[in-house]
């Protein structure tokens, strides 16, 4: 009951947060320089032409009136029409969201795999040269931003040893009609391994570029937690029982040490989704981030609003899920 109430309260605060984000974004993008009408003015435009265009796109009204009209549409699921793409914003962002989600999830999995392995190996070989090497590797991974990792990967696996695709999400020559925009999951579900291989070939470099900094954070934090746990009594007891060190780490220490990392992964996942904006651009990956950059360049205000609201919604939902998972995984909170 208490859990249900907590969820309801959280959902309410989420709604308030989204409204706040909507207000801020709506006002800010109209205040900053760069009028979309000025960008589309033909050479011989007269004052009447400018007025007609402003009326056509609703920019002749006050910001408050524009916001009210937009919000009433949003409540009914209508986020307006993109100025540059001339299609409903809701359709555009929902079509793109799966690409970004798939990329982010794969990147997260890679980060957890690499970071977790580094932490476990570092703990197993703590206070040795191996741990030093892992710390050094993590430090290096953190000090280089993801887009630079992207360029390094393009050079290595795109040019010098060209085994992965440099741009796009899927090869244009592939003959497949997807029923959803979750290409990766759908290819897996339909057992189209040729398509799956092609999708991975496109996704590998952007996902790894996104994953590297997060993997380093996971490695550092999890290793630190594990090392602290390794001195606790129940771990010593397990060791006394004769368990192998590997078993002690994975079965006894890991379940307790993982909680702080889980929280961090949740928070970092939202940053990871934010990171897709640059990475998707670099790899010409047809996700939400790539579309966001175009929307900003073109001052496509309805599209910017739609994308930001969707990002905000994802961020709050991810945080909500992480909080719930924390409660489920932590017995002290679960029984409180």
């Amino acid at each position, binding site marked *: 009951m208490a859990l249900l109430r907590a969820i309801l309260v959280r959902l309410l605060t989420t709604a308030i947060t989204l409204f706040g984000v909507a207000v801020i974004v709506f006002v800010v993008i109209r205040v900053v*320089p*760069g*009028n*979309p*009408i*000025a*960008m*589309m*003015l*033909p*050479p*011989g*435009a*007269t004052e009447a*032409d*400018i007025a*007609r265009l402003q009326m*056509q796109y609703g920019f002749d009204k006050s910001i408050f009136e524009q916001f009210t009209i937009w919000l009433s549409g949003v409540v009914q699921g209508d986020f307006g029409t993109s*100025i*540059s*793409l*001339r*299609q409903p914003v809701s359709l555009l962002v929902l079509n*793109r969201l799966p690409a970004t989600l798939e990329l982010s999830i794969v990147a997260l999995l890679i980060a957890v795999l690499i970071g977790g392995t580094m932490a476990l190996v570092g703990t197993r070989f703590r206070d040795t040269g191996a741990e030093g090497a892992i710390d050094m590797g993590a430090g290096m991974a953190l000090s280089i931003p993801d887009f630079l990792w992207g*360029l390094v990967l*393009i*050079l290595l*696996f*795109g*040019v010098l040893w*060209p*085994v*992965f*695709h*440099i*741009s*796009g*999400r*899927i*090869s*244009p*020559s592939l003959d497949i009609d997807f029923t959803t925009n979750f290409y990766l999951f759908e290819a897996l579900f339909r057992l189209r391994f040729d398509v799956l*291989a*092609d*999708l*991975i*070939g*496109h996704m*590998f470099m952007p996902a790894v570029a996104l994953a590297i900094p997060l993997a380093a954070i996971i490695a550092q934090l999890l290793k630190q937690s594990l090392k602290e746990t390794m001195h606790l009594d129940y771990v010593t007891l397990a060791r006394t029982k004769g368990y192998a060190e590997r078993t002690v780490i994975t079965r006894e220490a890991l379940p307790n040490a993982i909680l702080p990392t889980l929280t961090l992964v949740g928070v970092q996942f939202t940053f990871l989704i934010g990171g897709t904006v640059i990475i998707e*651009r*670099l*790899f*010409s990956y*047809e996700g939400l981030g*790539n*579309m966001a950059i*175009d929307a900003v*360049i*073109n*001052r496509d205000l309805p599209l910017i609003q739609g994308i930001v609201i969707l990002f905000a919604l994802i961020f709050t939902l991810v945080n909500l899920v992480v909080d719930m998972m924390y409660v489920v995984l932590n017995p002290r909170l679960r029984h409180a």
Partner: protein
Amino acid sequence: MKLSRRSLLKTTAAAAAFATVGLPSFAQAIDELVIAYNVNLPSWDPTVGPSAVNPTIQGFYQSVFDLYIPQNPDLSFGQGIITDYGWNDDQSQIWMDVREGVTWHNGDPLTAEDVVWSLTRAGTAETGNPIQFIWGKVANVQAEGNRVTADVKEYEPTFFKWMSFLTGYILPKKYYEEVGAEGFEAAPIGSGPYMVEKFERNAFVRLKANENYWGGAPEFKTVTIKFVTDAASRVAEIESGNAHVTLEVPYEEFDRLKAKDGIEGVAEPISDIGMIFLNDIEVMTDPNVRKAAAHAIDKQLIVDRLLSGYGVPIDTLQTPDYIAFDDTIKVEFDPEKSKALLAESGFGPDNPVKFTIQTTKGFKPKDYEMVQAIVGLWRKVGIEAEIEVYEIAKHYELRAADTLAPAAFYNWGNSVGDPTTSTGFAMFGPSPHSVWDGQDTFDMIAPLWGEKDEAKRIAGWKAVDRHIAEQAEVIPLLQYVQPILHVAGVNVVPHRSGALLPHLMTRS
């Protein structure tokens, strides 16, 4: 886990197998031409919305749709769907002959009715054609046989030139009316050399050759254009063999890559120019300051040092390809003259004249670096300019509101090469694209808009350009050169408009 030789071999084999699953194909013979393009294609209707006036995407449109009147690679006007055209004797009517035997991509015949519908639609303000101010100058568009006529409401000397320019495309009346705007966006058809086979927004467009194209079927039967907006990625695409053709890479990379085996480069001037708008406010109302600023810039030095020699210095807003180009109009690099002019107004290296210059950074090749170099040259003669970096969107807004800084770097495209679409719109005060409000220039330009005598009209524009150069009302800098890289198996014909057109590409 013990690391044995066997486990190491297994791991290596697994890694190699994984790494090759997504391996791109590197076919020696080019069956499917792949182009890494530098911009996205936002929308398929080439006659409405902001995309319609975006010069950088006209290459996509010209692959699928036909302009009323096409332009040859050297910007001369050719014969297209409109085979012949002109005015009647008293210029109260226009007439156009429509090519017979042309079909749309769906097999329907292209008729004079399609031309009538396209022109009427373009001239109707409600349809949202941004160039309606031109198309709306004719009315009562009618077809009789394959001849289309229209009444002239207001004489526009450049009317037929616009038929080769922005929004000057013929669309299929019957199909468009059947599927509507949304249906057309989802499945566009035209009469151009290629048909749209597959389109993934922000990713690629796959084109199939139109075997029935009136101008002859293109050589490459399938063309994939990938939208690769990042320059470093485009370099990697061509270097790795993933793309056969790419464009707009940094000049240093262009020189490096074209020296490699299997990659060739072509770099030709295009119709885009770099220039500095001067707004007649603050110190720019002083002709001495403007002239000093103009004479202090060594354009050739900038082209050589910053653009690796890829650029053509210009002294008016006309490039050598334009009809009103006059090579006798010169603004020499003369720093001593600049110093003397500034001294006349009480300025000098010890008492510099100060103003702000705005520029984009990374919007055009070396834009910011060029402005930095110019500011350095200015400093030597007694001009202290502060650089303000802004986004291109802000430039448009400030320019439309006539609130640009005293100096502002910009680029201007004019593929039809008419002076109205260069000097005219850039320097005529009432234009939303001009920040120059000088009465003398206004008085010289105003009568030229509707001038019916072509020779007199061009002579008039040349006089305007001379006046502008003498008064330094704008600082033209250079004509851009477009770098195109391609694999040795492809022959690329560059187009002066800057549009990269796959139907002009052949196997070499």
